[in-house]
């Protein structure tokens, strides 16, 4: 009985949501190549911002994690303070702050770089916590054995701790990557010309010129593009998790 009800609900959803959307939506603008070219320009900016933010925030996050684990209390306090401070703030506020306040101080950069800075400030703090938790999750005996063998702290981390910690960190790192890709859309609220902004301009343009509005259709396409990127990342994460 339960099973049949489930399939019935699924059928009703498809019948009343998916089929009308496909039949009555105004999909004609998406038959034109120019629409896709327009979205592709936006997607390029999204990917550019995401890739650079990932690289920068991973490097900074790793340094912060090591700093927080170091014995030097000054470095430790600074890194811990930075991490807790940034993690407690909305990423939207940080991006906004960079976009609004940096130009006032006299720092002039192309807008993708403002987005990269803002996202990296936030993501590096989260990455740092992931790295730290990963490093701490390695059994203490490993560290002691490495020291007993005479390895330097740097080599211990690079050759003993990290290879073991990395496997445990992969799911967290990838889910933070997914969050990062999604967070690039926040920059579009302010000034960045990326995928979501392109979609918004597209439906605003079609709404002003003649023709049916294509708000939902465009947003669906934009969401689908984000979905494909994020879902592929999630699948890769699952594969790595099973292997590791």
């Amino acid at each position, binding site marked *: 009985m339960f099973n049949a009800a*489930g399939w019935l609900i699924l059928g009703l959803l498809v019948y009343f949501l998916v089929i009308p959307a496909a039949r009555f939506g105004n999909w004609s603008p998406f038959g034109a190549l120019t629409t896709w070219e327009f979205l592709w320009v936006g997607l390029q900016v999204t990917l550019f911002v995401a890739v650079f933010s990932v690289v920068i925030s991973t490097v900074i996050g790793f340094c912060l994690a090591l700093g927080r684990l170091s014995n030097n209390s000054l470095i430790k306090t600074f890194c811990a303070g930075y991490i807790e401070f940034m993690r407690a703030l909305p990423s939207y506020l940080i991006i906004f702050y960079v976009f609004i306040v940096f130009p006032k101080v006299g720092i002039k950069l192309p807008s993708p770089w403002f987005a990269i800075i803002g996202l990296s400030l936030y993501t590096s703090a989260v990455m740092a916590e992931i790295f730290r938790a990963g490093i701490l999750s390695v059994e203490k005996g490993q560290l002691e054995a490495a020291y007993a063998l005479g390895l330097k702290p740097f080599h211990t981390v690079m050759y003993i701790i990290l290879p073991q910690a990395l496997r445990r960190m992969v799911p967290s790192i990838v889910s933070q990557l997914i969050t990062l890709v999604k967070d690039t859309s926040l920059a579009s609220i302010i000034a960045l010309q990326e995928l979501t902004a392109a979609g918004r301009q597209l439906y605003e343009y079609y709404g002003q010129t003649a023709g049916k509005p294509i708000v939902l259709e465009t947003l669906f396409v934009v969401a689908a593009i984000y979905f494909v990127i994020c879902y592929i990342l999630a699948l890769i994460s699952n594969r790595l998790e099973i292997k590791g």
Partner: protein
Amino acid sequence: MIILAQANEAAPAFGSAVVTYLPNFLWGMLMTVNVSFWAAIVSFVIGLVVALLRVTPSGGLKIVAIAFTEFFRNTPLYVQVLVFYFGLPKLGMKLGFEIWGWSVSDQFAAGTLALALYTGAYVAEAIRSGLLAIPKGQSEAARSLGLTLLQTLRLVVVPQAIRLVLPPLGNLYSAMLKNSALLSSIGVADLMFQAEYVNNRTFATFEVYTAVVFFYLALTLPMGWFVHRLEKRYNPLRAKTLRLQGAHI
């Protein structure tokens, strides 16, 4: 004296904009809490339902639940907010409503709903992993004692899972409070929105947004502390490594 006054007007003391418009910021904080509160309730209900759908033996319900979670987790919250605020009215759906003399604006309803659905997908995953962590023998024993599926969930599985689920949920809701900042883009009068308003009136950009940073800290730091206490209380052994599985939302 007149010259002094003019000089004061030309360069008001640092922080005066924040002091003058303090009520705006406080109202903004209240709105942020308000949105988060309602979104938390709605998202918990959604998450619970979806998680239960996913552990039922029905294939169709499972597909619905998986589609829901994967869609809402893998698309940006901002796009979802746009769908609910700009997209649904095109279909003739307005989300604002009135209840007991309180009118709920379109912005508030759409924003809260989007936030709740987005967070609900994560809540569902958190609850599901809590449910799956309960040994299978527990539910099998309950079923063999003659309890129905719903009774098994209600009386045996859920009470045990709550302990496992509470700390991750705390993380999620703390992240949700931060995510609510972007609802200012559709006109929910939260802290970010009020900051923009004050900024437009005073042009004291630097101090306004610096103040907003501290207002947000005043909201999120106590919450983070509370979550940390939850972790310590319910999962003292895992509290250290739990951040590894913290909320990336």
